[in-house]
């Protein structure tokens, strides 16, 4: 029992030692819509809103577009309005 306690846990080499360099660091990406005199996010601008949907017409999630929460909520609202007016597809062409 005493012997088992004495036995040290194996030491794992750190990632830096293994790879030989520091792991890559990621700076948080800024929201691509938050700048002065930014684009008009409106259902009256469907050509622009299309950039934030997939080919199939689904909304692109924030984790992929890194758009801020506030702008994403606005985008969602305006895209849904544009869809209702048939300016954008609910389900796009395959």
């Amino acid at each position, binding site marked *: 029992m005493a012997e088992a306690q004495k036995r040290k846990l194996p030491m794992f080499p750190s990632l830096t030692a293994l790879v030989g360099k520091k792991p890559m660091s990621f700076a948080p990406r800024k929201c691509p819509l938050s700048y002065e005199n930014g684009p*008009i996010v*409106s259902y*009256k*601008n*469907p*050509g*622009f809103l*299309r*950039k934030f949907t*997939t*080919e199939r017409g689904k909304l692109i999630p924030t984790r992929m577009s890194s758009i801020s929460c506030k702008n994403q909520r606005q985008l969602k609202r305006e895209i849904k*309005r544009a*869809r*209702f*007016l*048939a*300016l*954008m*597809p*609910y*389900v*796009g062409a395959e």
Partner: protein
Amino acid sequence: MAIYELTFIARQEITENDVANITKEITDAVVAAKGKTHKTENWGLRDFEYEINKAKRGYYMHLILEVDYAALAEIERKMKLHEDILRFLTIRADEVDSEESPILTKEEEYNPRDNRDNRDKREAS
């Protein structure tokens, strides 16, 4: 009094004059209710992204009105009964957007497949 953005879609079969008449009916009702029409914008005949009641395209008309809700509710009721109006959308706005809608000025055909394939070609030329 509040500001509302009203967009309606009329059937394709009717003429431009009929669309103007429908618009006039609405603006007359607004005037009767002591309201104001800030903007009248004709988006013209547009193709739908999906079919609405078997129709594939229609006339779009965009208005910015300043009316009481009671008058607007009456306008909406009449629009629902109107045979030539396929669909309409009213939105409460904080302020009058006096600029021309980007749908008329910044219409760009966005094709997601276009991005990678043609960008290089365009840059090369």
